[in-house]
């Protein structure tokens, strides 16, 4: 294996791990992997991050009868062996009625006592569980929101009718850049960087410019480094955009753009 060949192949480690190689490339890489300690090390060190992706999905509950179906499936397969041993049947105590009733009274007392301590125990656990559920509920609302956002961003980007619009910094902010992805069926994702912090009382507002007029697509709140990503639902009957722009506007936003342009771009291809 020559060095240049190795450099070319080691580059594929990430693609291999996330499953982005074609079958041919995959075979080639696996053959290389067997003989290359460097690539094995690379794969080993990145594997935990990829395994974590397996768990980073919204949690869903399988239907209750799926367990039965799964176990029934394997019962039909070979190799499932031994049957369950039969439990021995208890024999009757009825041969001393008096002793039996005494025993029963004793057992009842013991049972009542056990029951009371069991109830106390369960009450403690219930209180604990309620507390856990309450804190989990707060966490979950946040999670669910994050999951929805991630899901809709990805849905836009995986859309069959995806179009891309590059936005360039205008004289007010020549360093600023943005890229928008728009799908008529799924919505709009905008990612911008290097926006200067807006002056007090002013906000950035995003516009989808149609042949008729600019339509507000909402306010942007960049972080401290001037980056922002926004996912926006757009109506299915939105007229085809001819341009997109970001302007600086009074707090709360305005129905039509009034302020200076910071970003502007037109679609690379006809939408």
């Amino acid at each position: 294996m020559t060095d240049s060949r190795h450099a070319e192949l080691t580059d594929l480690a990430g693609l291999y791990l996330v499953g982005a190689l074609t079958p041919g490339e995959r075979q080639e890489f696996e053959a290389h992997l067997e003989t290359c300690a460097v690539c094995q090390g690379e794969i080993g060190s990145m594997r935990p991050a990829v395994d974590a992706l397996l768990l980073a999905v919204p949690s869903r509950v399988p239907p209750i009868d799926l367990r039965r179906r799964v176990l029934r499936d394997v019962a039909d397969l070979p190799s499932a062996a031994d049957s369950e041993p039969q439990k021995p049947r208890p024999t009757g105590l009825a041969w001393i009625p008096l002793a039996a009733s005494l025993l029963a009274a004793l057992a009842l007392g013991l049972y009542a006592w056990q029951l009371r301590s069991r109830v106390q125990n369960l009450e403690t656990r219930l209180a604990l569980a309620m507390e856990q559920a309450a804190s989990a509920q707060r966490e979950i609302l946040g999670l669910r929101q994050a999951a929805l956002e991630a899901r809709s961003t990805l849905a836009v980007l995986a859309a069959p009718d995806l179009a891309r619009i590059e936005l360039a910094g205008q004289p007010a902010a020549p360093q600023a850049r943005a890229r928008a992805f728009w799908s008529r069926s799924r919505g709009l994702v905008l990612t911008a960087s290097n926006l200067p912090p807006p002056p007090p009382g002013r906000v950035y507002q995003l516009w989808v410019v149609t042949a008729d007029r600019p339509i507000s697509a909402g306010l942007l709140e960049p972080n401290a480094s001037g980056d922002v990503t926004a996912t926006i639902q757009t109506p299915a009957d939105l007229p085809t955009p001819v341009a997109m722009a970001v302007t600086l506007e009074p707090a709360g936003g305005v129905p039509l753009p009034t302020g200076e342009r910071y970003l502007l771009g037109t679609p690379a291809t006809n939408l």
Partner: protein
Amino acid sequence: MWALFGVIDPVARNREPFGRRGEDQAADKDAIRRIAAGDPDALGELYDRHARPVYSLAIRIVDDATEAEDVVQEVFAQAWRQAGRFDAARGAVGAWLLNITRSRAIDRLRARRAKPQATPTLTEKPVDQLIDPSETQERLIVTAETAARVRAALGRLPLLQRLAIELAFYEGLTHQEIAERLEEPLGTVKTRIRLGLMKLREALAETGA
């Protein structure tokens, strides 16, 4: 109240599906040994510990409840057949099951894409319907911590790095397909995935995952 316990108890046990907790991993490996010996009860145990993340991943990829159930059945049937070949030295049982799940689910997705008319059932559901409203909040806790950590780490990646990773990992696109979709050169996609994975790895190491 009885119903509530039924829900809370498995949650406490399953909090770490890949088991930072040694006893879970040991129990999994013991179950695998028993499955290899043909014990169906052991498969039931494995199901109880892993069905939820397996089903969650399957439905995330195939985006269809019935198909996700088929995937779950295939995964446990495969575990039943191949338990004897499971190599305990190579990692956690949970990761093994989920890797099988991903590959089964992506196979279905690709088969569906290969048929011309197939995409609509996958894609045209409004986003709001993708989360099952009947799901109780208690049940959501199970993988919440792990998922939250990784999701947070993913969320901190630059958008295009995250997208390249997600389009490959959950949507089963090849790097050529991703490059076409994002209108970017192949080399750029390669770099984004690599950088994204490296950052993800660092983020997980920092939070002690």
